[in-house]
């Protein structure tokens, strides 16, 4: 088993190294470098000043030299400084953005599960009635609305017109931290982020519950005189939830994609906003670190899954 784990970990490390080379090359193939991103084209700055900046940042060195210098530093835990943020160390910067993204994503997922499952149950139980038709229309709209669209519309409606929620940010500037303030800023982006996933969960829940409700054991329960409430809650919903749980797991990737848009629309200081800013400003060191951190998480999760599979099925580790 130990040999198997070592082998999988070795593969993971190799993948991480390959990923770093790939990102490094792709970044250098992208037109423009951090200094090009730094210059406002309308401001007259001489090429000599720009060349001096490139030299100071080592951007004038051959690519292999730049890569191995980065790798050597990264292996010792030094991911360098953000080029565009005047000396902010990259690793703490990237790590500081994990929390806000996780908070936003998990709040959105929680809202989408509660609302999606509940609406799915209502829709299935009231099949073909007005509430079912209404919820179905809403869910279709939700499923087919991309996050950036719901984000912008929600911002306009609830922040600009109604002024119920703030238009962006995570905390009110200039006020001491409070959980209430955080919640106040969190509700709107999290709710908007939950729409697409909640609508999908609702569709699955409805379909799954309708199928279960037509099963023999449900009919038997009704025939025994069990009240409809308990028939649904105790007998049907639990079974209907199984495919929905699988769906929730597989749509978390989509939620991450949506979070990037929502973070951008609401200026939510998470990984998405950081990545977008880093890419548009060609902040190489931040892009490298953030992408590698994401890649390492995926590789680690896969490694743990492989180990778990191997633990329960000896055929896998011997294969």
């Amino acid at each position: 088993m130990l040999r198997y784990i070592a082998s999988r970990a070795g593969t993971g490390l190799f993948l991480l190294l390959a990923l770093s080379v790939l990102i490094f090359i792709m970044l250098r193939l992208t037109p423009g470098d951090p200094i090009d991103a730094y210059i406002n084209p309308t401001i007259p700055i001489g090429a000599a000043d720009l060349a001096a900046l490139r030299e100071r940042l080592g951007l004038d060195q051959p690519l292999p030299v730049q890569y191995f210098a980065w790798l050597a530093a990264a292996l010792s835990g030094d991911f360098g400084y953000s080029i565009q943020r005047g000396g902010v160390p990259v690793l703490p910067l990237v790590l500081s953005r994990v929390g806000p993204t996780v908070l936003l994503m998990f709040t959105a997922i929680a809202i989408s599960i509660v609302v999606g499952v509940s609406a799915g149950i209502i829709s299935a139980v009231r099949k073909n009635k007005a509430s079912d038709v209404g919820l179905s229309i809403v869910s279709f709209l939700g499923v087919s609305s991309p996050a950036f669209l719901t984000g912008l519309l929600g911002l306009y409606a609830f922040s600009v017109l109604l002024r119920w929620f703030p238009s962006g940010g995570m905390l009110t500037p200039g006020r001491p931290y409070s959980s209430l303030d955080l919640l106040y800023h969190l509700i709107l982006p999290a709710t908007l982020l939950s729409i697409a996933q909640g609508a999908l969960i609702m569709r699955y829940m409805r379909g799954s519950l309708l199928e279960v409700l037509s099963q023999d054991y449900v009919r038997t329960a009704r025939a025994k005189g069990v009240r409809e409430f308990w028939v649904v809650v105790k007998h049907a919903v639990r079974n209907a939830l199984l495919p929905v749980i699988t769906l929730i797991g597989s749509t978390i990737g989509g939620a991450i994609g949506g979070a990037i848009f929502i973070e951008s629309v609401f200026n939510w200081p998470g990984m998405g906003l950081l990545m977008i800013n880093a890419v548009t400003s060609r902040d190489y060191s931040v892009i490298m670190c953030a992408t590698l951190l994401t890649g390492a998480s995926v590789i680690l999760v896969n490694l743990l899954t492989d180990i778990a599979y191997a633990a329960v099925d000896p055929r896998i580790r011997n294969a």
Partner: protein
Amino acid sequence: MIGRTLGRTLAVAGLALASTALVALPAIAQSEEKTIVGGFDVGPGGFQGNFNPLTATAGFTWLNTYYEPLVTYTADLSRLKGELAGEYTASDDLTTFTFKLADAVWHDGEPFTSADVKYTFDLAMNPESGSIFAARLADVVSVETPDEKTAVVTLKGPNGGFLSTITQLMMLPEHELASKPAAELAQSDWWSTTPVGTGPFKFVQYASDQFVELEAFDDYRDGRPQVDKLINRYFANPAAAVAALRAGEIQFTYAEADDAQSFEDAEGFTVIPGDSFVLNYIGFNHRTELWNDVRVRQAVMHAIDRDTIIETLYNGAAKKAECNYVAPQYVPDDLIDYSYDPEKARTLLAEAGWEEINGGQELPWLTYYNSPQVANIMAAVQAMLADVGVNVAPRVVDVPTYNGIVRGDDVSQFPLVYAGAGNGPNPAQHNINLNSEQVPPNGNNIMHISLPELDTALASAMSEADPSQMDARWQEVCRVVNEQMPWGSMWVASRYGIASDSLEDFVWTPAPGGGPFEMNPEAWDIEP
């Protein structure tokens, strides 16, 4: 039954969310401190996330609330005046500048002295510090400090643009920074955590990508600011800042022309228009042979109906440019009038032999402008040029891609560009774009313009030491540009800020790079 129960539960949850907003809003809004929140780094004059004034290409509106330069522009950008230099004089030959310093103190209580001036110049001229002033201050021979309140800067030769350059040179505290090596300073977190300036506000904190908070500096030499806090909120784009302004969360932001128009009749807001001081031009790549004949360049000018574009696509909020300047003191009366005349354009193209030079072949037309307004303008110009036989295909890229392409060697990617060049308030700014000596790596003449007559006119204006002759020298530059059209001068558009009427004594103008200019933030106030 079950549906109804769940429906009620959802309704209760919805009410709870709405009530959170209603409860949270007043609780959070309560504050006794006077605070102005604005999007001070939104738009082309802003530079979100940059805290180091030595590496700033823009963002001076905000930087100038806690740092100060020796001299600054007046709010209408028409002339210079002293800021940290209470008085200043220039020698007749414009080579020696003497600054008498104001009785200012740093935010930590230390006095501001001539040693700080010398230290700042030395640091700014040292490329190791990451300074982008090094080349522009290359003609500084010495900075002397005869006493604590006097600094004398000597230049190699006359430089009429020197004072304008140092308006963006924010003074830095020697006692705070001198112990740090210049190379380390470029990566120091001092700038974004504990900076010390002499401005009316003191730095409190930077919440990454969210906002920067300043507080009133009690010992400011012109009196304590009227408000307790000044906050610069960050936004992904101007539209997001406008949404926050409409929502009442901020009191000021820069706005795109379309948004500004929507505020014209809005109650509670004031639209602040101003010159962009950016000349939009059609840049001819002189490294190709397409534009060698001046008649081709002039034909492009005659092919474009600039009056109609300004009237319809800018709603009149732009000034037509017949040369590289629009400021009246730099524009002589006897310029060639490039009025819309497609027939003349066709004739000029035929005389120059455009059919043989390029014919109907499509030319990429590169730009970094990605607003809907510019997309419409470029589409209109594309149609007008096609009408006379010049076929162009607009290509929009982001700023780093644009800079990467135009500073590269693949000229086939940019035979033509649509771009902007700062053209004021200092007229000398264009030397770095138009002089053949300023072709990279020396300067910013990315279109490789090389016209001897223009070089002579620029050199003459740059070295003019007699203030009474300066305008005439720059008029000569304008005249040569008008005749030769090294680039197709189009227009200078207006830019806008929008301020809430709750602000009092608020001064702002859409200065290039955000200024600096005399905005007196210590006088800004807000209605309770």
